[in-house]
Structures are given as structure tokens and as C-alpha cells.
């Protein structure tokens, strides 16, 4: 019998998969209306509605999809559309780097699939689970539970928006579900000095750069936050 060098990813772990899906629920309330809106804009844009919907399974990142649909509708040059969409998605490289260490030892096909599902909500839900102690394989299943739930919901919301033109219940202010959810995740991390510096710096830069062109504010804020965290010497709390 040959030695197995690749950690197995067990597929039947219903409990962890369901737990990941449950952890994604707060995000769904926020992203589903966003998906509906993008679907509606795809239906109204001067491009085939199916092409607008296709931004979901291909680009799979809301702000970038909005930019692509609006610019194609406005008749922007394809190269400019692609560059803009990719600049908005630069943060995915940071997410990839942060989660890569947790995926070491998994089969290539698994990483290829897991990376495809990587976007803000799946990163947040996944990295939070990976940073907790416990079986790494359980965490992989947890990640997939959340990420696949998000993917299905996102594509359904885009499709519903594109076909039905559904209206948002604006009075519920669901656009603030995600920011408040993130506040809940941030507060416990304030106890660590370097994390605190990263958070406060990122907040300031994100607010100042909210009108930055090409949606660069978020990526600038993350980089500034990282720089601030690294000014704290290791071991200092």
C-alpha cells in the first residue's frame, strides 16, 4: 500500500456542510437583494439579458458585475470593461493568499473548485471557521457549505431579478445587514493590538476613499490596514 500524501477531503459531512450554510444566512439577506438589483439592471441594459446574467457564474462578484454590465450598456471598449472589472476584483488575490495556507494538502480539483467559489462572503465565513481550532477537513466542508449556498442563492437572485424585475423592500434597509454583520465579527478582534490597528486604519481609509474611482476604496483600505498591522512588533498585544 502506498503512502497517501494528499489529505483526503471527505464528502459526506452533512453537519459541517449545514453549519457552513447556516453561517452564510446573514449574508444571504444582504446579497440576495443586491443580486436582484443586478438582475434587473442586466434586463434593462442594452446587452442580451442572458449575457448580463452570465456575469454571475463567470465574474461572480457583485460590484465587478455591476461595473461590467453598466459599462457594456454604455458602450465602453471591451478592454476597459475587463480592466475595470479586474481592478475591482484585485482584493480576490488577497483573499486567495489568506486562505491558501488553509488549503495546503488538498487535492488540486478541490482547490480549483473552492477557489472558484471564493468571494467576500465565502471568504469571511470560511476564514472565520479555519481560524478556529478543529479538524481541517470539517472546516473544508464548512467552507463548501457556505460557499455553495451563496453561489446558488446569488445565481437564483440574478435570474429572478432579470426575469421578474422584483422590487426591493427598501424600508427594511437590508443594505445594512452586511455592514452590521461585519461589525459583529470585528468587535471581538479588537482585543489584539495589531488587528485593532488594521481595523481602525481600514475603516478610516475606506471612508475617505469611498468615492475613489473604479471601486478602489476597499482594496486600498485592506492594504493600508495590513501595513498598519505590520507596524506592531510580533508578540505585542
Amino acid at each position, binding site marked *: 500500500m502506498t503512502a497517501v500524501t494528499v489529505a483526503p477531503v471527505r464528502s459526506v459531512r452533512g453537519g459541517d456542510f449545514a453549519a457552513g450554510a447556516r453561517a452564510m444566512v446573514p449574508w444571504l439577506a444582504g446579497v440576495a437583494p443586491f443580486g436582484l438589483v443586478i438582475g434587473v439592471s442586466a434586463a434593462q441594459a442594452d*446587452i442580451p439579458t442572458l*449575457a448580463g446574467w*452570465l456575469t454571475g457564474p*463567470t*465574474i461572480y462578484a457583485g460590484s*465587478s458585475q455591476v461595473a*461590467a454590465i453598466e459599462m*457594456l450598456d454604455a458602450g465602453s471598449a*471591451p478592454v476597459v470593461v*475587463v480592466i475595470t*472589472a*479586474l481592478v475591482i*476584483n484585485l482584493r*480576490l*488575490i*488577497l483573499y*486567495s*493568499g*489568506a486562505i*491558501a*495556507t488553509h*488549503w495546503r494538502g488538498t487535492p488540486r480539483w478541490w482547490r480549483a473548485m473552492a*477557489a*472558484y467559489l*471564493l468571494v*467576500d462572503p465565502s*471568504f*469571511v465565513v470560511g*476564514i472565520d471557521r479555519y481560524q478556529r481550532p478543529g479538524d481541517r477537513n470539517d472546516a473544508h466542508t464548512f467552507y463548501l457549505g457556505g460557499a455553495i449556498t451563496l453561489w446558488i442563492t446569488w445565481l437564483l437572485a440574478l435570474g429572478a431579478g432579470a426575469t421578474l424585475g422584483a422590487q426591493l423592500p427598501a424600508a427594511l*434597509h437590508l443594505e*445594512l*445587514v452586511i*455592514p*452590521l*454583520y*461585519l*461589525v*459583529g465579527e*470585528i*468587535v471581538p*478582534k479588537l482585543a489584539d493590538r495589531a*488587528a485593532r490597528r*488594521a*481595523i481602525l*486604519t*481600514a*475603516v*478610516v481609509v*475606506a*471612508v475617505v476613499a*469611498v468615492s475613489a474611482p473604479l471601486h478602489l*476604496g*476597499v482594496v486600498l*483600505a*485592506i492594504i*493600508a*490596514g*495590513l501595513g498598519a*498591522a*505590520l507596524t506592531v512588533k510580533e508578540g505585542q498585544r
Partner: protein
Amino acid sequence: MSVWLTILVAGLGSYLFRISMVVLADRMTMPEKLERASTYVAPAAFAALAAGGIAANTAGLDVGGWIPPLAAVVVAVIAVRRTGRPYAALLAGMPALWVLTAVVPA
């Protein structure tokens, strides 16, 4: 380049971003400083997305428009600190937002 091809290329580029560091992490050892920095991507990204989201939603509004979301954030922070549970931010913050939006004149 057609609309379809433009979307496919943007999608392929996005996928390469997603897989980039996952592939590279196997072929090279990340510098110690980068490895350490990666542990702070999550708090920095959470903070950037939260602050950016709130700022985008309140940009251009008058005082009556930005008081409810900011007060909801304060309520959420207090709720999490008191209970030690992240989900308390939503359970306390959203009702606070609804009440304040109804009470504070726009």
C-alpha cells in the same frame, strides 16, 4: 470583442485572481512577513467592507440620513461587547436602525 467574450475574459481573469495565491503557495514558501500579514487580511477586509458599505449608503445624505446607521453601529458594538456574541450585532443593530429611521426626521 463581443459582449459575451468580454464577460468571459473578465470572468477568467477573476478566476485567475482567486486561484493565484492558492497555486503559488504550493510552489514557494511565502515570506514570513507576508504570511503574518495574511492573518490580518480578514480583520482589515471586514473593516473595509463594513465601513465602505456604510459610507456608500450614507454618502450625500443629510444628518437625519446618517444618524440611524451610525447609531445602529454603536448599538451593535455595545451589544457584541456585552454578550461576547458576534450575531448580537444584527439582533440589536437592525431593530435599532428601523426604530431610529422611523423616529429621526429625514
